């Protein structure tokens, strides 16, 4: 649908075939429907997520013992592929896919802004991700030994960032410019708000990665290389992306998902909603890390700003979780898997921010080796995976029109909690080895536990996929699958038809469906 197209006449189920039924391959490849684009993004991110955690596990195995499990070249490639891949191929597209699907529904729009650009974002990302994987297979990881393949990796990274930025622009433009009447920006659902913050932060920071990649590429391909493209410096120039505080920018959507899940499944309005929105915004601002590039600015991590941001983001996370805990106490929480997965995501994020605060304390010498940062990174990405799984279980009835198996979801609560903790915490502990020699002696055991955690996380992603597929056998649901929906996506049919909505409501609060229900209850 072009930008200038008129709004579809109706959003009734009779108006068009449900968009969950995607013809293959023409309807899929040529679709500008945000629901198709979002679902494909999510599905591919999950499938590649399994591979991402397996790659991370393989690198962990290499770190056990004498480091002779892999050749040096293979280890370099796996290190680069695992960390960048988990962010750019798994975490970012998982949350962007959910946002592409849900933000138009949550703001009462009939489409995402620039649907063709959103489709271009998906396919550009997919091609770039494929190029990224192929290049790494050809010894082209950052610092890899095959120059042509390294150039391919650089182009793939730039392509993925370009795709993610385009997708983000579509999502935030939808939230900014296509909201239904009466929905002021402070009345948008939490996930939409988090998507706006995420998109804004990505638009401002991910282009900085493109700048880094451009310098490396020009020097590596056309230069001596002289400085930027030399083998040992390539990873160092982009490592800020996977380090504190920038890595938190990939976890912002988790805050929105968790808040939406908690308020709906507890059946109450979020108290002090504006404060929670402000906390999500503050978390986003504190996740801006493009300025802290140790390669160009070695003192960055010793600055008060760096330490201050780490402290503040912990306070913000605590306040945010405290606000949601108050909602749980005042509401009627149901023992469902989305709520459990949301709790896991929140807990892992809290652990990550606590670890982040310790990271900036210079006397602890946690920045001496990269192990501690690897643990922090694993906790954040595990939190994103848990948050994404919570979102998938929560919105799966909306996406498919059927309920997923809650048993798989509940099992996944345990799996992702255990996996996230095992993948991250042992490396956090190992980070203290510079001060405690006995920990260095236990390095192999700690790496072994972390590897087990990576594998359990891969299993958790598989369980999420299985749970999503279980909707094929689930019961059909109406528009409001949970019976306590507060936001507009629960007012349109499940799955949403082309055009999403028919007659739109005038939104008078942040919980329009509760507004509509309350007069009936009073009567």
């Amino acid at each position, binding site marked *: 649908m072009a930008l200038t197209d008129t709004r579809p006449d109706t959003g009734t189920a009779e108006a068009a075939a449900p968009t969950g039924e995607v013809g293959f391959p023409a309807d899929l490849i040529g679709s500008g429907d945000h629901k198709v684009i979002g679902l494909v993004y999510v599905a591919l991110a999950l499938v590649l997520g399994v591979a991402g955690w397996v790659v991370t596990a393989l690198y962990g195995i290499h770190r056990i013992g004498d480091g002779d499990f892999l050749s040096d070249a293979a280890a370099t490639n796996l290190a680069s592929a695992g960390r960048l891949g988990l962010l750019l191929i798994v975490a970012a597209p998982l949350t962007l896919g959910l946002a592409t699907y849900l933000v138009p529904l949550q703001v009462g729009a009939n489409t995402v802004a620039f649907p063709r650009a959103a489709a271009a974002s998906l396919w550009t990302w997919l091609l770039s991700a494929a190029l990224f994987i192929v290049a790494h297979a050809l010894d082209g990881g950052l610092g890899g030994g095959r120059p042509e393949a390294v150039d391919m990796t650089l182009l793939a990274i730039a392509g993925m960032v370009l795709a993610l930025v385009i997708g983000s622009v579509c999502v935030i433009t939808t939230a900014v410019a296509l909201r239904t009447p009466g929905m002021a920006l402070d009345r948008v659902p939490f996930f939409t708000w988090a998507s706006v913050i995420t998109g804004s932060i990505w638009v401002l920071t991910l282009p900085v990665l493109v700048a880094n990649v451009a310098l490396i590429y020009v020097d590596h391909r056309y230069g001596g290389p002289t*400085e930027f493209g030399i083998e040992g410096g390539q990873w160092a120039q982009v490592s800020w992306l996977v380090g504190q505080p920038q890595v938190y920018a990939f976890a912002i959507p988790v805050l929105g998902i968790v808040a939406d899940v908690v308020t709906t499944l507890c059946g109450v309005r979020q108290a002090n909603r504006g404060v929670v929105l402000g906390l999500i915004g503050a978390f986003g601002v504190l996740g801006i890390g493009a300025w802290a590039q140790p390669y160009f600015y070695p003192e960055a991590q010793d600055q008060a700003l760096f330490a201050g941001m780490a402290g503040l983001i912990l306070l913000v996370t605590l306040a945010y979780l405290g606000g949601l805990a108050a909602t749980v106490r005042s509401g009627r929480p149901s023992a469902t898997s989305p709520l459990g997965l949301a709790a896991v995501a929140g807990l892992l994020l809290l652990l990550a921010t606590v670890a982040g605060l310790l990271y900036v304390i210079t006397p602890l010498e946690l920045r001496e080796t990269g192990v501690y940062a690897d643990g922090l990174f694993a906790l954040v990405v595990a939190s994103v995976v848990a948050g994404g799984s919570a979102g998938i279980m929560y919105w799966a009835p909306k996406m498919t029109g059927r309920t997923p198996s809650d048993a798989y979801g509940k099992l996944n609560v345990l799996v992702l909690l255990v996996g996230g903790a095992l993948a991250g915490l042992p490396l956090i502990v190992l980070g203290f080895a510079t001060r405690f020699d006995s920990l260095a002696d236990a390095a192999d055991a700690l790496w072994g536990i972390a590897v087990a955690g990576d594998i359990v996380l891969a299993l958790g992603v598989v369980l999420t996929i299985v749970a999503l597929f279980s909707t094929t056998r689930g019961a059909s649901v109406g528009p409001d699958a949970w019976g306590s929906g507060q936001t507009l996506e629960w007012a349109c049919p499940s799955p949403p038809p082309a055009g999403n909505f028919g007659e739109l409501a005038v939104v008078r609060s942040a919980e329009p469906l509760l507004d509509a229900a309350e007069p009936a209850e009073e009567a």
Partner: protein
Amino acid sequence: MAATRALPPAPPVQRPRVLVVGSAFASAAAVMVFVALIGVYLSQRADTLLAGEAWLPQGLDIPLQQPTTMLFTLAMSVVTMQWAVSAVSNDDRINSYIALGTTLLFGVATVVMTTYLWSLMGADVSADPQAVLIYAITGGHVVMLVVAMAFVALMAFRALAGGFSARQHDGVTAAAIFWYAMVAVYALIWISIYVTK
């Protein structure tokens, strides 16, 4: 499962300025690439000077005449671009065609001047990190300029096809936003590289 709740119908949806908002975000992303590149350039330069060494290597000469000519060319293009926005918002088609065409002409002139400047500078990308930085930044700007020209050309064709009116001229406004961002980036480059050297 709850039944669908009956909600009162909303008034007709007014068409928002989607393209303008999207263009603003895209422009911000493009500007950030150059903010980062110029930040690296200035940081590397400061470190080198602090070490008591000369920043630009021997043989790398950056003249000021051509960059300043480009600055004035692009400054004039801002005027013509705003002329186009003003003309299209007044349904003045002849003036909008002339203004968009002139803007494109200024863009082409800037591309030509940049390539001429590269031939004058004698920067050896295979030997000096300074040359890598200069080529990455100025080359990146040429890419942004070409994208901006493509955007303006697309909107010019739409205007020729009668696609805009006084009531709806978001396309030209959106192209103008990206164009202004491109010129602002050039101003940064002019100060940081060509003047400061």
